């Protein structure tokens, strides 16, 4: 059933201004720090200045005499009051103990919270925190995953016995045979995908009011995954989940990283209960950089790719060391999530990956825009590019030839994932048009000898959306997760006005607008007439366990649930109108705020009358209708998944695959290594659009982030384990001044698997990282080095121009 069953598609698919923007532009939004709360206390964390140290003593005595001091929370109390947060990894790394304050008498990364202090104001709390004396004994630390796996490396978690959080081999097809028989084999010793994050505009803010009378924690704050957060906190605090309520209002970005909110939120909750007053923690930018969630850093070793003499890529193999930092938190899900895009954009037949998740004394990683897939896709795309350059294939033709072809959809990957739809060749063609490819090649030729070099690069990616949580069982067979659902609720108020709330917590993606568009179409109203709930509220029954905003899924799951919920409301309206108008429910259509009899518009009932009758005059209705109708549609969308085959590590792991093909032209200064992007084209295909303007906005955002990550953003640690980009002083997020004008085009390949043919999108797959690496390579040319890093600041590019990485890349045949 599609929405066309009940109404026309007047609004869906159209560019409609965002409902949210009116309040946001007038500064009437309500972000985490805005909500006024009486008697509010403020929490500041005392954090570790060391990468690894034993806590010898904590002295808070100086705090007690300070004005505004309310109290504090110490690790010893947390040890008694909570259990460790739930761990996803199997033995032996399930022995990891992760608490809201440093556990086990040690700190494991710079910025780890050790003491939480509360004051009557943020200033007071900070001044108090400054007087807390923590005596540390620094311990040997490890900040490089390659060193962390050596036998004598310092142990991040003593109780585990190694720094390996997860270790597994994926082996699909027969790569050994392919490497043996292929005409060409390319081998690269090491590639590296660097650590960065999305740095949302709003850092985390959590307000907790503990209501002692009903033993309930009320949380306010941008929460990307409310029910999982509730579950984590409930289990750790040994407190019923239904006595934890999470409300989110306006929310300045998550991009995945705020999934880690349960850790600080637990400390704030404990303090609120202990001190008997509401508590708020407002994260500073430096705190956010230390532990707000980094993207996965990954080392790729012994990478081998098999290619035929005709330029067909057979497959590849590699060993991955994924640096997850000091705690696993959402990890080691990254160890399986990359397999959603095992094939990347290509018809690979063989793939073998030995993957290990590694602890280091660095900030914990969290899901971050393109989570775990972009690392793998960067590797595959980089190898495609290296192979093309080394084997003498044209990089455009080489990709075109190996892309999954339009007629092959639905396409099954090496591991049983099903790519739903797409047209990669057309997308590439459009991307090359955007950068005026032939003209760019002319520019490139003309740049020879000018001191500037021009390079052209392509980035091909997928944004897989709507997870099958059954994939969690591939990293730990005992995890009780499978499939995916989302909830939604639509109801008609006493005057006929329509209210909707979804389980997907928007953090800037315009969910209120897209929800209003599809609901308006089903009810025959305009989007302006649909009242959309801002944010989310776990008390409203619109959520399921997987609810939230992550993993590029709202257009499928959130919209799917709201469609199902609206369908229930439509049915109720039809029942009421049919009984009043003397028709059958099937004859009732909804149009212009009325329920009317098809073909007989004179027989119509305004929504206000429908609502009035149900809410205030049920005696007007036949008993069987009055008993059934409450004018509330609450429904779940279930994504059609099965539990994967754990033995063969096969199964369909995500429902949709949006694609992004990017192309860029850049210029490198031969004396400095500086990069200037001259042209940038991006082609997005996310199926049937709901609101093209919102899609374009998301594509622009993801592109800017990717360009910024490729050239500027780097969470580098020094040898002492100190984060050197601990705030925006040194973490340069690109501004408009750094960017070219972005050129956009789209392809529409509707998904056959989703309610309206739309696909999740917004993460974007990190295409700029691939495109820029390829363009740098193209500019550097055959006599320079090989781009083996995802992060390429000027100094590194200058190094490439001077050669130097040759020996690590070999064409074996």
């Amino acid at each position, binding site marked *: 059933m599609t929405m066309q069953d009940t109404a026309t598609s007047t609004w869906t698919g159209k560019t409609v201004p965002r409902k949210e923007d009116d309040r946001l532009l007038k500064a009437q939004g309500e972000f985490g720090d805005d909500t006024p709360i009486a008697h509010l206390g403020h929490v500041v964390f005392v*954090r570790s*200045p060391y990468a690894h140290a034993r806590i010898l003593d904590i002295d808070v005595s100086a705090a007690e005499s300070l004005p505004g001091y309310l109290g504090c929370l110490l690790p010893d109390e947390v040890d008694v009051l909570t259990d460790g947060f739930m761990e996803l990894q199997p033995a032996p790394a399930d022995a990891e103990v992760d608490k809201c304050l440093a556990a086990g008498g040690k700190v494991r990364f*710079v910025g780890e919270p050790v003491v939480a202090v509360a004051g009557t104001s943020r200033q007071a709390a900070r001044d108090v925190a400054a007087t807390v004396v923590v005596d540390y004994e*620094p311990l040997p630390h490890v900040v490089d995953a390659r060193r962390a796996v050596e036998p004598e490396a310092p142990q991040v978690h003593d109780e585990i016995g190694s720094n390996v959080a997860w270790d597994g081999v994926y082996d699909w097809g027969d790569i050994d045979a392919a490497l043996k028989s292929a005409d060409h084999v390319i081998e690269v010793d090491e590639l590296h995908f660097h650590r960065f994050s999305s740095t949302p505009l709003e850092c985390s803010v959590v307000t907790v009011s503990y209501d002692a009378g009903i033993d309930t924690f009320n949380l306010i704050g941008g929460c990307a995954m409310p029910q999982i957060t509730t579950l984590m906190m409930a289990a750790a605090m040994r407190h019923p989940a239904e006595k934890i309520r999470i409300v989110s209002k306006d929310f300045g970005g998550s991009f995945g990283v705020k999934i880690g909110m349960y850790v600080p939120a637990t400390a704030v909750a404990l303090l609120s209960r202990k001190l008997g007053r509401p508590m708020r923690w407002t994260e500073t930018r430096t705190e956010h950089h230390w532990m707000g969630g980094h993207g996965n850093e990954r080392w790729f070793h012994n990478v081998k790719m098999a290619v035929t003499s005709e330029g067909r890529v057979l497959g590849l193999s590699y060993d991955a060391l994924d640096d997850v930092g000091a705690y696993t938190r959402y990890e080691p899900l990254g160890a399986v999530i990359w397999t959603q895009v095992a094939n990347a954009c290509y018809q690979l037949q063989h793939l073998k990956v030995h993957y290990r998740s590694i602890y280091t004394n660095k900030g914990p990683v969290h899901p971050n825009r393109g989570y775990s897939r972009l690392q793998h896709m960067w590797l595959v795309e980089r190898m495609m590019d290296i192979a093309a350059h080394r084997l003498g294939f044209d990089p455009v033709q080489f990709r075109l030839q190996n892309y999954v072809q339009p007629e092959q959809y639905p396409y099954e990957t090496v591991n049983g994932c099903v790519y739903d739809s797409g047209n990669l060749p057309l997308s590439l063609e459009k991307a090359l048009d955007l950068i005026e490819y032939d003209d760019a090649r002319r520019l490139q030729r003309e740049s020879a000898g000018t001191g500037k070099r021009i390079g052209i690069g392509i980035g091909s990616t997928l944004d897989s959306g709507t997870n099958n949580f059954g994939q969690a069982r591939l990293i730990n067979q005992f995890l009780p997760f499978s499939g995916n659902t989302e909830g939604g609720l639509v109801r008609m108020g006493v005057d006929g006005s329509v209210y909707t709330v979804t389980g997907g917590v928007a953090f800037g993606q315009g969910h209120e607008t897209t929800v209003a568009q599809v609901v308006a179409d089903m009810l025959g109203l305009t989007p302006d007439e649909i009242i959309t709930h801002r944010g989310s509220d776990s008390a409203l029954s619109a959520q399921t366990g997987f609810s939230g905003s992550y993993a590029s899924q709202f257009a499928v799951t959130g919209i799917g649930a709201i469609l199902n919920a609206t369908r229930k409301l439509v049915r109720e309206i039809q029942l009421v109108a049919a009984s009043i108008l003397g028709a059958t429910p099937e004859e009732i259509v909804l149009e212009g705020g009325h329920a009317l009899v098809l073909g007989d518009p004179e027989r119509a009932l305004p929504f206000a009358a429908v609502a009035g009758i149900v809410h205030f005059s049920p005696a007007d209705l036949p008993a069987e209708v009055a008993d059934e109708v409450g004018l509330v549609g609450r429904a779940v969308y279930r994504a059609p998944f099965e539990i994967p085959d754990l033995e063969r590590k096969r199964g369909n792991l995500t429902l949709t695959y949006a694609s992004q093909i990017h192309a860029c032209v850049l210029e490198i200064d031969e004396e400095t290594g500086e990069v200037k992007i001259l042209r940038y084209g991006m082609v997005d295909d996310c199926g049937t659009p709901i609101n093209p303007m919102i899609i374009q906005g998301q594509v622009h955002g993801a592109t800017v982030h990717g360009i910024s990550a490729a050239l500027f953003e780097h969470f580098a640690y020094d040898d002492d384990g*100190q984060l050197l980009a601990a*705030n925006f*002083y040194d973490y340069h997020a690109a501004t408009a001044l750094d960017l070219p004008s972005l050129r956009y085009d789209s392809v529409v390949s509707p998904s056959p698997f989703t309610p309206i043919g739309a696909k999740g999108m917004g993460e974007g797959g990190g295409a700029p990282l691939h495109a820029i690496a390829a363009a740098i390579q193209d500019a550097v040319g055959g006599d320079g080095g090989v781009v083996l890093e995802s992060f390429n600041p000027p100094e590194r590019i200058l190094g490439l121009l001077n050669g130097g990485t040759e020996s690590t890349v070999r064409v074996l045949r």
Partner: protein
Amino acid sequence: MKLSGTFTTQASPAQLARLSTEPRQLEQVTSLRDVAVDAHGHIRAIFTAATPLGAIPLTTTIATDRADESSSRVLVRGTRGQHRVDVTLEISYQPTATATQVSWHADVRLGGTGASVAQRVAHDIARNAIDGVLQQAAGQHLTLT
């Protein structure tokens, strides 16, 4: 961060070797105040670095790991709120015909926010701070003894 410096003083190697354990001399150094000896026999003091953005007062612990007439090894830890600096200081004394040449080598490790935001300036600030304290302390020694 590895730093070093050299200067010449009229103090004798024997006098210099005692410097890091004698609060009376350190008290005379203008950037140090509240000099005291703690329960472990370490010197505690407030060291203040001056910058155009204001003073940076650090609660400092000075522990002499080893000291003789040819050299000393001193461990200094400074804390201020959530900022931290650890210094391992090796000082050697070389008598010349008329004076003593002091050479110092320091391994300075910043912890917390300062490690990031001070990464381009900490080198000079720390070098000047260490050199300043040592020179002044050495000079003060003469006036007091």
